[in-house]
């Protein structure tokens, strides 16, 4: 269980994270999404007690992270796969973590196998690892203490498609046996397939949050017209909730037929009218994050 409550982080006047709240329940995978620089990493570092929030609180398994007894045995954390000492071998890196957590050294061998680092890779120094191998090592470190909660920042970065599939399977299985997973990504496609819940942030604020299935079904129909202003008037007159995206398309929270009738009533020529589909969430994600990114 992870509870994030109105977390805010300011650096001087600039707010990196503003009023972010969400909860991750046991047995679920939460995808924490946003473009680079949206405040995901800052939020996760505050959650893990590495950065002090300006205001708000965060707890893991009912207590602030820093009050956890034996945190390595309760919570598996991967905040940055490239933050490894390049002079240590993969096995040595895991051995140090195992000693700190207090698990048997033989667990290290099981973890190496689990994350797909073979004997040759384990002997190699981390400085010579690819980013994908570092991610596997980092995921291995997170799993080493057999935790109940996983917090992973951009774990799919650098993994090849097979690696991403492997990670999804692993996280799904972890959640299915009662674990809590929070993973961040700047790519919706990486987490859409595995996340039960999505929290999308942009510019440090939560833009959208909800069940993945719900978000998929409520993205609304998309419409495009020859005269955008006329369509705005038509939709407003019909009382249909809508917003206009940067590319000129409208997203309307109503059935396609209602949109078509509103357009007909105001003699608006529609060029496009589409029901939400699987690609809808991706478009929603882009529409929510891209303009904010450009403005900022």
């Amino acid at each position: 269980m992870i509870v994030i409550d109105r977390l805010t982080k300011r650096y001087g006047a600039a707010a990196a994270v503003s009023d972010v709240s969400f909860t991750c329940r046991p047995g679920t995978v939460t995808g924490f999404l946003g473009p680079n620089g949206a405040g995901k990493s800052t939020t996760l570092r505050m959650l893990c007690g590495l950065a002090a929030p300006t205001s708000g609180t965060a707890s893991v398994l009912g207590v602030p992270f820093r009050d956890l007894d034996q945190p390595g045995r309760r919570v598996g954390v991967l905040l940055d796969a490239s933050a490894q000492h390049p002079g240590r071998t993969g096995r040595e890196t895991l051995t140090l973590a195992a000693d700190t957590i207090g698990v048997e050294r033989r667990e290290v061998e099981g973890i190496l196998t689990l994350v797909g680092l073979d004997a040759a890779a384990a002997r190699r120094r981390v400085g010579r690892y690819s980013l994908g191998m570092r991610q596997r090592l980092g995921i291995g470190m997170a799993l080493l203490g057999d935790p109940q909660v996983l917090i992973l920042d951009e774990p799919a970065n650098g993994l090849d498609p097979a690696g991403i599939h492997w990670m999804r399977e692993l996280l799904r299985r972890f959640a299915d046996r009662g674990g809590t997973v929070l993973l961040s990504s700047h790519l919706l496609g990486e987490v859409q397939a595995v996340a039960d819940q999505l929290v999308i942030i942009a510019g440090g604020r939560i833009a959208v949050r909800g069940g993945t299935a719900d978000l998929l079904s409520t993205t609304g129909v998309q419409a495009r017209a020859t005269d955008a202003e006329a369509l705005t008037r038509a939709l407003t007159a019909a009382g249909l909730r809508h917003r206009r995206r940067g590319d000129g398309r409208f997203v309307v929270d109503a059935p396609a037929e209602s949109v078509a009738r509103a357009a007909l009533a105001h003699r608006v020529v529609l060029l496009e009218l589409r029901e939400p589909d699987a690609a809808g969430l991706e478009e929603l994600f882009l529409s929510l994050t891209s303009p904010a990114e450009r403005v900022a």
Partner: protein
Amino acid sequence: MSEKILFTSEAGRSTVPAPALARRRTSAGFGRLVRIELRKSVDTRAGRWLLAGVAIIGVAMTFVAMFTGDPDDHTFPRSASSIQGAMAVLLPIVSILLVTSEWSQRTALQTFVLTPRRGRVIAAKLAAGAALAVAVAVLGIVLSALATQLAGTHPTVGEWRQAGVVLVASVSVQLLSQLSGMGFGLLLLHSPAAIVANFVIPIAWAALGGGIAALHGVQPWLDPAKATENLLGGHMNAHRWAQVGVVVLVWVVALIAAGLIRLRRKDIS
């Protein structure tokens, strides 16, 4: 990496997260943290080479002490002085890196996630650094004794009586240089800056103290180089021990305390 492997390797592990009570254990013991920090100082090539370098310098200085200079100078305290002094120059780099590499390699993220009480981690690092300093001091004593024995001059009984003093002085010198270096590391959290500061600031301070008449009175109380020289010179008295105490207060205790205060509030990234 297939699903089968996932299942097999997990077979021995609990399949369902155990309830919190079943895994109640005290935090990692302090001794374990110190052992981990000692391991970190030798598990990279850089660390092993630096420690080897300290030993090599010690051995080299042993030969220098045996074969150069006036045979009358081939005494146990004088050999110890040159051997310990030389090793004390390089040794602090080992422990500076033990602190600063957590930031330069960004392993601090993982370290403080696994042990959120930052003061505990730093205390373990200081203890590991102190243990290395004592080990190096003892190595230096053994080399000094060898140099004295093998140099051919026959040490007088009186000279060996000074062995206890030399031992205390040697350990003190290595601890002072080691912990002062770690103080710079902790305050700056940056490898090159801390290493440079560790060498340059004491020298600059000594030059300043030597050049300005008004500082002559306070200089012996604040100059680590002078304290080291007095300790290795073998002529300590209450006054000089008091001076060493003040030097330790400024160059070890104050630096480390300032670093710890800063670290408490610092965001790790």
